[in-house]
């Protein structure tokens, strides 16, 4: 392995030029892969290396060897890595596992950086990071050829060495700070096994491991935790372990079906759909952490001290983010999560607070209930508001058992709470969509006053969605289009071309937090899937990886449908209709995982794309308000 010594790459071009006529150049004729966007007629293989291997786990026996190629077609350079078939050296790996790692002609336009590793002992390897921030697992050059690999790339695409790290080669836009961070990110060797740390199965996993590389593994875990990345390989395995398919709904199945059909769809289209830089299903190896079972009663008790204070709010939020809470304890947890009860209050304090707030609620409610008909005649603002609310509560979730039937008292409660809120916050008043946000809260809290105050807390966050000037909505839609640009630039260009950059088609999703689960115009609306919605809301309310996870959710859902959107060339109208009809089919757990992965990958750039004060962030306040608050205290 004499090639493993560290070379200065200044002479790489010469090296490659010298070997141009050599054996590495052969005409590509790879017909084994139907998904390959490469047209064999026009493609030229400019580099080929056998026995380039990946190490999906730490077991020395689990190695997947394959052939690495650089293929040139027109003026574009592609990289592919195909595992060898038919020579499974060990029983651990199925062909399916191998397929997970197959790199089917990734374009260099989608590659951000390549990091070269030339350890003193062991094989040289590279880590290829895509523009999306996703990375392939290390490719080990068992037969050498790494230097030649880099040199060949250099001949065909513009790459530059990173200023920070001479072993990082930046492809494309190397000024981008996001890329700088990601390109220096080192994915650990033990991608799959270490990702189990959070699962209940981690014990088994550790027993299986040979303890020798424990330290290395810990570093791996840190990296993984930091980026919340799980390999596709691990995802497949964990989903088996969790029997995730039990939770699958139509959405996922549809999605899977779509994915299977995708190559066919593309084939039938004249113009190929630009690939998703964050493709999470086919080539990606990165995924949000697996969801956990919801927080149960016993575990909830462990978060509380003997007097009922939440000891570590962040730990609680994190736990809820990854699994939600069991239905039976929602009533206890939602007020804390929404910030209505201080998390560090005791059981007794909360009880007292509840009583105080109850009489406070009744005072406000009495303000409008005491308005006489005579008075109301001369109070058009009140009448209009009240009638708007009356019209809306009778068309809010009436197919749900809690609200169904004539003269359902819960519908009256919705009405009373909303009218009271419009007096509590007279400036904001009532706006359509509020009844949609309140109904699940009343369903959980059951109590009128408690529901009111939880709703008040929620409106502290979402109130700007209903501002008269709609600026809260506009700023979220704006942030969304910025995030699309960051996380899926081909889709962004598509929206631009179709005059859809205002992202209005996501308006309903954002205004009422993905509430409308059933199709608006469907007559045989299926049973309202409240439970999924409740889960989604409590997860979003944790603000755990980001206050704006709902925007990343929008992106995740759009990505799931991007092939269809672009393939069918949807315009403003059709896109809106498609999205509206989709809302009944959103598979919450899967989308949340993808949203998390996207949020983490976007990192600081994602934060920068969202203007300060974008709901549900609190408005950017001036200092005078803070001072005022202090005086009150």
């Amino acid at each position: 392995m004499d090639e493993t010594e560290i070379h200065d790459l200044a002479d790489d071009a010469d090296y490659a030029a010298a070997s141009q006529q050599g054996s590495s150049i052969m005409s590509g004729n790879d017909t084994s892969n139907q998904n390959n966007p490469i047209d064999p007629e026009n493609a030229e293989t400019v580099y080929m290396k056998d026995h380039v291997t990946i190490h999906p786990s730490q077991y020395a026996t689990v190695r997947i060897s394959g052939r690495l190629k650089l293929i040139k077609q027109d003026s574009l350079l592609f990289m592919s890595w195909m595992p060898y078939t038919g020579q499974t050296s060990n029983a651990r790996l199925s062909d399916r596992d191998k397929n997970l790692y197959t790199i089917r002609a990734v374009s260099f336009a989608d590659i951000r950086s390549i990091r070269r590793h030339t350890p003193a002992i062991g094989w040289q390897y590279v880590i290829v990071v895509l523009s999306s921030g996703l990375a392939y697992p290390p490719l080990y050059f068992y037969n050498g050829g790494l230097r030649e690999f880099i040199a060949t790339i250099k001949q065909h695409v513009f790459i530059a060495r990173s200023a920070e790290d001479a072993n990082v080669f930046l492809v494309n836009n190397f000024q981008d700070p996001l890329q700088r961070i990601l390109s220096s990110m080192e994915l650990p060797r033990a991608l799959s096994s270490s990702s189990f740390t959070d699962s209940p199965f981690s014990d088994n996993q550790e027993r299986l491991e040979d303890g020798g590389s424990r330290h290395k593994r810990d570093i791996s875990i840190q990296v993984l935790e930091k980026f919340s990345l799980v390999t596709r390989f691990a995802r497949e395995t964990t989903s088996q372990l969790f029997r995730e398919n039990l939770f699958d709904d139509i959405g996922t199945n549809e999605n899977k079906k779509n994915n299977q059909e995708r190559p066919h769809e593309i084939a039938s289209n004249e113009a190929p759909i630009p690939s998703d830089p964050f493709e999470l299903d086919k080539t990606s190896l990165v995924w949000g952490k697996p969801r956990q079972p919801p927080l149960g009663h016993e575990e909830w008790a462990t978060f509380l001290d003997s007097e009922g204070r939440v000891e570590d709010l962040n730990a609680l939020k994190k736990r809820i983010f990854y699994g939600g809470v069991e239905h039976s304890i929602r009533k206890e947890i939602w007020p804390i999560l929404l910030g209505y009860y201080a998390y560090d209050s005791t059981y007794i304090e909360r009880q007292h607070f509840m009583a105080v707030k109850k009489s406070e609620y009744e005072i406000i409610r009495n303000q409008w209930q005491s308005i006489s008909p005579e008075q109301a005649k001369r109070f058009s603002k009140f009448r209009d508001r009240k009638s708007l609310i009356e019209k809306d509560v009778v068309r809010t979730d009436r197919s749900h058992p809690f609200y169904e039937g004539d003269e359902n008292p819960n519908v009256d409660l919705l009405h009373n709470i909303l009218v009271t809120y419009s007096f509590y916050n007279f400036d904001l008043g009532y706006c359509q969509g509020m009844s949609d946000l309140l109904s699940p809260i009343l369903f959980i809290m059951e109590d009128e006053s408690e529901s009111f105050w939880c709703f008040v807390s929620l409106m502290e966050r979402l109130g700007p969605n209903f501002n008269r000037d709609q600026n809260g909505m506009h700023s979220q839609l704006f942030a969304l289009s910025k995030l699309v640009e960051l996380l899926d630039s081909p889709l962004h260009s598509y929206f631009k071309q179709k005059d859809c950059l205002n992202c209005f088609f996501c308006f309903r999703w954002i205004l009422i937090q993905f509430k409308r689960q059933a199709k608006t115009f469907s007559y045989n609306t299926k049973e309202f899937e409240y439970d999924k919605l409740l889960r989604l809301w409590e997860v979003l309310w944790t603000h755990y990886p980001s206050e704006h996870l709902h925007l990343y959710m929008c992106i995740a859902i759009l990505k799931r449908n991007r092939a269809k959107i672009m393939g069918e060339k949807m315009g403003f109208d059709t896109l809106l209709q498609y999205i509206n009809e989709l809302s009944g089919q959103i598979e919450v757990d899967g989308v949340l995982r993808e949203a998390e992965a996207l949020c983490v990958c976007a990192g600081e750039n994602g934060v920068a794309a969202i203007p300060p004060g974008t709901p549900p962030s609190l408005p950017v306040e001036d200092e005078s308000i803070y001072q005022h608050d202090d005086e009150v205290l």
Partner: protein
Amino acid sequence: MASRRRMLLKVIILGDSGVGKTSLMNQYVNRKFSNQYKATIGADFLTKEIQFEDRLFTLQIWDTAGQERFQSLGVAFYRGADCCVLVHDVNVMKSFESLSNWREEFLIQASPSDPENFPFVVLGNKIDVDGGNSRVVSEKKAKAWCASKGNIPYFETSAKEGFNVEAAFECIAKNALKNEPEEEMYIPDTIDVARERQQKSSGCEC
């Protein structure tokens, strides 16, 4: 073959919240009425294929949220409209009084090339309620307003009972068609014949 090409006619339904816009649209397109429609959030549309003589058209009917505060979003949806339907509830005076406002707002936001002659149709809905006893906007009053705004066709409807809905939308479609620029028309004579016929059967005052 050109005559078989489908043309898209875009119609916008406006009016105060709760007057029955969503119900009217569903009654026309799906011939169904439900008490369980949700308040419209954002916008939605339904399409219906219609035929005049040998020509097929796609009527695209846009339903938007009725609360004033969502009006700023209208720009995106009103663009390219061929006809605007203004709906009020004959049992609610305020919904009638809002019609002027909705009309103005539409003309500002859609900014049609010829605002003077842009086709509107007014629907007075929910005439079934309480056997007409709770009615506060008379037919005469509504028609007077329509006349003052350049002879806007007026229909009294019940989305619940399906009364006059079909006729109203036929008139709406016809007006939308009229708004389409001449050069896009195929054999204009044929259309005129169709238009005359429809006029008789629908009682449309256009």
